[in-house]
């Protein structure tokens, strides 16, 4: 959690902010100009949708994570924004004749305002409701929005004869949104959340989450804070909705379905309630990974069982090894370091091989990132400490692979399994929701506070995960 810390000196402020603004714009433009043209439409769509989900997760985090108001209707704000902006473009874009990008900005502002008003409407019941009860009310709000839009087909039953395409869809007619627009909105959403948490206002939001009575006793108007959180989160989601409408060209009522809202809540919970970066990472990953799974070839059921059993055995083994005394010896550490080097080299090699092949750029990107990390680990003394951890990971990976074959062979011998499952194969993409559910269960058992908990992402924390020490921090602590 971003905390109240000693600030930069003011003289440094403008240079720091200026540089980070320029870097953000340059980075987004560079991606738009150089990387996006290299990708096919499908990949661009997947990546952009990933950014949309990340934006939604971060904006929901303001309501759910920071202010602690459990909202389950976030997709409704998204869809309200999408319809507001989309309808504006469908009706007025041709008549006004502004340049598309300027028009998009107007549409985004309009959609954000409309969604913000929806946020007030939902925020008001939150004054009296808490926890589960508020969740139910917000869920109800999501359904009302969906059903309302379903019936706005310009016919007799429509409200003021409003034509939003009814249950079919609204045709926007303009595909203005580009990848970098969504990237920019995500950056803005993250920046606003972060700024909020660095001020006393942010503390007021957090205190409302922690203890409403105590917060009001020290003078925090919890009513206003809660409504403000809803308005802020809703208008950011609405802005994302407008961009989505101009990205997808059509909006359907089901884009704001309850399932979508659940997914966004799951992202915030997995990322860690109140963690901005956690929400962003979880939002992006949870929408990318299921799609990346489509690229994998079908796998036979028995092989899958072998892998699952192998993983379980490896995890058990890891726990057994951890308790042995030899793990703290120097020999073990150096063996693991060598293995770590091997792992890094394998990764680098795989990245090199994959860069030329036609696999998904998403997988390529992951490999490139890992290769970069490898390079950093090999080059700097600080990183060397993480190598035994890498080696240990490789050892367990090797155990899984090695164990998989005998397990599969044994499974083939069992008549019941052989007869019923030997011909069954699964496509990984069909398993993506099962995988999603299982990972949700595992995370909730292993780390109920979410992957990042109340913390924010930082490289030093990432290093610590692999046993890296961070000398800088220790000095500042003294």
């Amino acid at each position, binding site marked *: *959690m971003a*905390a*109240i810390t*000693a*600030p*930069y000196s*003011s003289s440094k*402020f*403008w240079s720091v902010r200026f540089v980070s603004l320029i870097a953000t714009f340059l980075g987004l433009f560079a991606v738009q100009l150089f990387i996006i043209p290299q990708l096919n439409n499908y990949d661009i769509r997947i990546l952009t949708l990933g950014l949309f989900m990340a934006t939604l997760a971060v904006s929901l985090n303001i309501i759910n994570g920071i202010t602690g108001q459990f909202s389950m209707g976030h997709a409704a704000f998204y869809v309200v924004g999408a319809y507001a902006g989309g309808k504006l473009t469908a009706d007025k874009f041709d008549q006004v004749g502004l340049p598309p990008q300027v028009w998009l900005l107007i549409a985004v502002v309009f959609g954000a305002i409309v969604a913000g008003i929806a946020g007030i409407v939902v925020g008001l019941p939150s004054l009296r409701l808490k926890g589960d009860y508020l969740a139910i009310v917000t869920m109800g709000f999501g359904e009302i929005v969906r059903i309302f839009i379903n019936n706005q087909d310009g016919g007799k039953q429509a409200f003021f004869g409003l034509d939003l395409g009814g249950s079919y869809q609204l045709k926007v007619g303009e595909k203005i949104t580009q990848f970098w627009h969504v990237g920019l909105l995500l950056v803005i959403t993250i920046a*606003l959340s972060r*700024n*909020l948490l*660095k*001020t*006393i*206002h*942010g*503390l*007021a939001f*957090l*205190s409302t989450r*922690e*203890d409403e*009575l*105590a*917060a*009001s*006793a*020290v*003078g*925090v*108007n*919890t009513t206003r804070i809660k409504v*403000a959180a809803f308005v802020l989160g809703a208008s950011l989601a609405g802005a994302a909705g407008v961009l989505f409408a101009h990205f997808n060209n059509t909006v359907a009522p089901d884009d704001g379905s309850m399932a979508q809202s659940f997914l966004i809540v799951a992202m915030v919970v997995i990322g860690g309630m109140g963690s901005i970066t956690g929400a962003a990472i979880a939002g992006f990953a949870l929408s990318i990974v299921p799609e990346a799974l489509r690229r994998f070839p079908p796998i036979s059921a028995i092989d899958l069982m072998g892998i699952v059993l192998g993983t379980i055995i490896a995890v058990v083994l890891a726990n057994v090894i951890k308790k042995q005394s030899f793990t703290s010896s120097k020999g073990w550490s150096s063996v693991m370091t060598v293995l770590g080097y091997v792992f890094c080299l394998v990764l680098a090699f795989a990245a090199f091989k994959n860069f030329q092949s036609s696999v998904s750029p998403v997988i390529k990107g992951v490999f490139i990132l890992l290769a970069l990390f490898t390079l950093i680990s090999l080059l700097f003394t600080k990183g060397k400490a993480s190598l035994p951890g890498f080696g240990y990971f490789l050892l367990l990976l090797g155990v899984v692979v090695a164990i998989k074959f005998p397990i599969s062979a044994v499974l083939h011998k069992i008549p019941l399994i052989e007869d019923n499952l030997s011909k069954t194969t699964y496509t990984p993409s069909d398993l993506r929701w099962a995988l999603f559910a299982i990972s949700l269960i595992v995370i909730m058992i292993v780390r109920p506070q979410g992957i990042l908990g*109340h913390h924010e992402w930082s490289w030093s924390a990432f290093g610590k995960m692999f046993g890296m020490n961070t000398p800088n921090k220790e000095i500042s602590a003294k």
Partner: protein
Amino acid sequence: MSILSLREATIRFGGLIAVNKVSFDLEQGDLFGLIGPNGAGKTTCFNLITGVYTPTSGSITFKGKPIAGQPPHKIADLGICRTFQNIRLFGSLSVLENVVVGGFLRQQVGLGSALTYLPSIIKETEKYRQKALELLKVVSLDDVADVRSKDLPYGKQRRLEIARAMATEPDLLLLDEPAAGMNPQEKVELMEDVRHIRDEFKMTVLLIEHDMKFVMGLCEKIVVLDHGEEIAYGRPDHIRNDPKVIAAYLGEAV
């Protein structure tokens, strides 16, 4: 003129009269004790003053203005702040952050401008951070400023609650059993601290406490409640010998 005065303040919950026609006055700079057996209505009294409950009848005036029925944050804004009997800190925030929240009332920053995080906002935030650090020194918690408040030992949590309440710059500080769960040594230190707060920060202090030694040693005036009714009012030595008070605490002779 008295800073706080209750006039026949009464609250009923259904058939139960939790506080019945309680009247007392606090002068500026008083160290005032509110005592009574369990269930006497002391905390309910605090809840009436701080706006958690609205009195069924009677009036409460603070600096000459009626405050009964105002929401708690308004009352905090007027200059009354309290601590809680069952500690209510913002558990996952750090000790320092718990105190900085108190500055929310007094800062001159709107939500819109806070989101920009411009240098003026940073300056304002820094001002209240420094103030909070000073308050932590007053209650000698400055060495644990970065610790999560949930992880503090009990006695320190109580002192942190006092610091958080002081951060709202109140004129009247309500302490609900500040010494509960403290050992004798800590209680002596707390007495010193409370006196110091009253003298240094010019705050009026109204406190609830069960520890008679603590109350008699610290407070200059005391009100005794029993079953929601005021049974005695006066100086400690007067209270100590009041037969009604002795009866309330020890039971009447048969």
